[in-house]
């Protein structure tokens, strides 16, 4: 009994520094922002701030762009690495040399390659040079809808690497004889993959999706380094909306947006974990 309480104290003590850190920088100020979210000049205003936020056009623009980006970029950054990992698993020899090459986009800082992207994709840049030579109409990657395409390309390029490693690790853990037996029973390659490999890979896939979603929240970095503070309206993301309100220190607006988005993300997360739990049954 005494040992139990001693262990409880040690456990609590060990967790304490981390707890204090998130309490000070995340939890306590989150409750302060709740206060700002429901007041205007120290007057309680109920949901008025939320109503004003929802009427804001720039807020919806940023939500729309972030949604478009996430719905296209995340599936691509999960499926392409899965295909590459399956492809790598067909080699008899070790392919770990290649998978460490694939990791380089993750390791190289964003700011280091930004200038390369600019030279490639600027209006009179390398890519348009190539397109022109092929007789294709040049594309403006820094204006209009193509700017979103450029951001998606860069995101997929950067995030494939780590996901390939995770999928490859998942495939390596898989008992090899399972698929060998199935092949003997006359199942073709496609059947082995869809009926056996993919279901066994499900836990890895959920983990990969989760990490990719978290990385997708950081796309603002690329957008900022390529387009600056005031980008084309097609790549105006939620972080831009927040930054504009930071610049004029609009606390009620900031707090309201932060609260609304946090509730939205918690809800989305609960759905995600519910799907995960159900699929594991």
């Amino acid at each position, binding site marked *: 009994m005494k040992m139990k309480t001693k*262990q409880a104290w040690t456990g609590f003590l060990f967790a304490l520094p981390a707890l204090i850190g998130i309490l000070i920088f995340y939890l306590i100020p989150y409750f302060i922002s709740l206060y700002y979210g429901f007041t205007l000049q120290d007057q309680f205003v109920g949901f008025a701030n939320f109503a004003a936020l929802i009427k804001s056009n720039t807020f919806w623009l940023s939500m729309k762009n972030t949604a478009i980006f996430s719905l296209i970029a995340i599936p691509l950054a999960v499926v392409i690495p899965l295909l*590459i990992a399956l492809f790598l698993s067909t080699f008899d020899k070790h392919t770990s040399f290649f998978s460490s090459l694939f990791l380089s986009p993750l390791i190289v*800082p964003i700011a280091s390659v930004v200038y390369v992207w600019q030279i490639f994709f600027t209006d009179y840049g390398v890519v348009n*040079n190539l397109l022109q030579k092929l007789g294709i109409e040049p594309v403006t990657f820094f204006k209009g809808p193509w700017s979103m395409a450029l951001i998606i390309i860069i995101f997929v390029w950067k995030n494939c690497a780590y996901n390939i490693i995770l999928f490859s690790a998942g495939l390596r853990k898989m008992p090899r004889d399972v698929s060998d037996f199935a092949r003997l029973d006359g199942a073709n390659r496609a059947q082995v993959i869809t009926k056996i490999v993919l279901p066994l890979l499900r836990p890895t896939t959920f983990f990969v999706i989760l990490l990719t979603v978290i990385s997708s929240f950081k796309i603002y970095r690329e957008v900022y380094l390529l387009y600056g503070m005031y980008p084309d309206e097609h790549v105006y993301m939620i972080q831009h909306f927040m*930054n504009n309100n930071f610049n004029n220190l609009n606390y009620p607006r900031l707090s309201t947006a*932060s609260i609304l988005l946090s509730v939205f*993300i918690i809800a989305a997360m609960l759905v995600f974990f519910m799907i995960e739990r159900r699929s594991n049954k």
Partner: protein
Amino acid sequence: MKKRIVIIIKYAVLAIIAILFLLPIIYMLANSVMTSSEIIKAYTNSPEHYANFHVIPDQFSLEQYYQAFLRRPQFLKMFWNSLLITIPIVVIQGLVSVFAAFAFTKLHFPFRDALFFIFIILLIMPSWVTMVPNYMMIQRLGLLDTIWALILPSAFTAFGVCLLRQFMRYIPDETIEAARLDGASTLRILFKIVLPQVKGGFAALMILTFIDNWNMVEQVIIYITDEEKYPLSVALSSYAANDPGVIFACGAIFMIPPLLLYLFHSKEFKNAKY
């Protein structure tokens, strides 16, 4: 014969994938050993003259590196700023997370799982949600426009705790109970038994935390007004506009610390089991 053709095709595909991933990096490195005048000449573009794909230097030259290291004190200052922000974050994050992850995985205390749930929620929260609370606290503590505004919130994220916990879960409880019966203290169990078994996870944590904060952008432009304190992750892009002749070497130098860290730990990193 047919089999051989299939193998050749497979390696060709592999090579194409590898080139796609490496091209921007090779391009940067190749351009970093060109003279500044060659760079400016190659990339001054206009409707009449499109920029060319230019990867082989006319003349090998370390001029850009010489310029960046010895003629651009500002560049080195920003590089130093990046180190000054990133290293404390990695150290604090590593230390705090090891203890907390161990407590949340292998020790029992009241409200443990409820408290851990907060960490999971925080893990997912994007910067556009957390920066508002962060800002309010940083401002109240009077830390705006200091590097502590960048260090402290990033050092105490939930990432380290969640990642290390994922690794520690696979250590059987019996190992820990046995050591405890032998009279080992909790600290001793953590450092002698648990840590050696999660080396890969710890390497992954160090590398990923380093890379993530080496790339820090959004916090810098909101919390820091004095551009002298900017890290290279933000400052490098203004270089591109003002000083394109040395930008490739600057980018290459900026890449060195994460690359070294990765090379030293690549084995543990890749063997890390999730």
